[in-house]
């Protein structure tokens, strides 16, 4: 049988890998792919809790997470295309002036 701790730990590892990728990669597209990896960890955690408590609310929550991921991907890629057309590069450092 699979315990709750397994879901939580695998979910935490996926989320942590996403955080590490988000912080260290410089390609804008790979940065957004890292956020999708984080979403995978969160979905796994939600489904693990749904199974642990034996009701479906965790799965409904994960379904809404899927919608948010789709919205985020659509907007983020539109923004990436806009930034790419301005500077002709996907390097996040090209926009370091926005750091303030």
């Amino acid at each position: 049988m699979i315990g709750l701790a397994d879901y939580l730990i695998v979910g935490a590892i996926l989320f942590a890998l996403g955080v590490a990728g988000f912080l260290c990669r410089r390609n804008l597209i790979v940065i957004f792919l890292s956020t999708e990896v984080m979403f995978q960890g969160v979905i796994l955690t939600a489904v693990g809790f749904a199974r642990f408590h034996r009701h479906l609310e965790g799965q409904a929550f994960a379904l809404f997470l899927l919608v948010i991921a789709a919205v985020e991907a659509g907007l983020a890629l539109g923004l990436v295309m806009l930034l790419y057309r301005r500077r002709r590069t996907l390097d996040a450092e090209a926009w370091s002036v926005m750091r303030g």
Partner: protein
Amino acid sequence: MTTASSVLLYAVFAVGGAAVYAMAPKGEAPRRGLTTILVLAALGGFIAFLFTQFPVAHAERVCFAVFALIAVGSSARVITHSKPVYSAIYFVLTVVAVAAMLVLSGAEFLAAALVIAYAGAILVTYLFVIMLAQQPGSPVYDRRAREPLLAILTGFMLAALISHRVMVGEGAGNTANSGATGITASASLGNTVGIGAIVMTQYVVALEIAGLLLLMSMVGAIALSRKKVEKEYHESPAAALGLAGREAPPF
């Protein structure tokens, strides 16, 4: 959870962090021997950890461990591969492995939705953008990560912190109903019917808001990508020197 297994888990996190650091693009030739040893050590330790809690090799548990390994390994490649196209393809592998874990835990509808929405729709969009914005050769921002040591330290400290909380919670006796036989058994009508019922009754307002959010995202994406920016590009000093990207515009 015993102390030995939690020490083992922290050791796996440390070795795994070192393995991801060894895999991260640092602008120099990769040391393949060291990387392979670290990766194998981390994977072996992870398998050993997953079997310390329940020593009996249950079939469901073996499947979960295999898919967890595939998911973690391929997501490590997503964040470390120096070619974005390969990152996206490895992400498909992550999604499929996570969907398999969802099937194992009785969430069939969500697994199908994950494969259709992620691997079918979102990833195709990512691949489109990668290929539209592809630069010739391998640009420097793909070959050299920004502060990989600090970033990986942050990530794996976070994972260790969450795992520590999980273990403390387990020690307080939270494992009471972890032996659930699957949600389909309690719903008796099937997973998809159950989710449909709960989403259309209890969460119907949230469902409407989600639909509205999708509409807003569509309008926003169209508004963003319709902007004319060609003029600003041709006026930029980097473009005048021929330093910015390739010579021919993609359209």
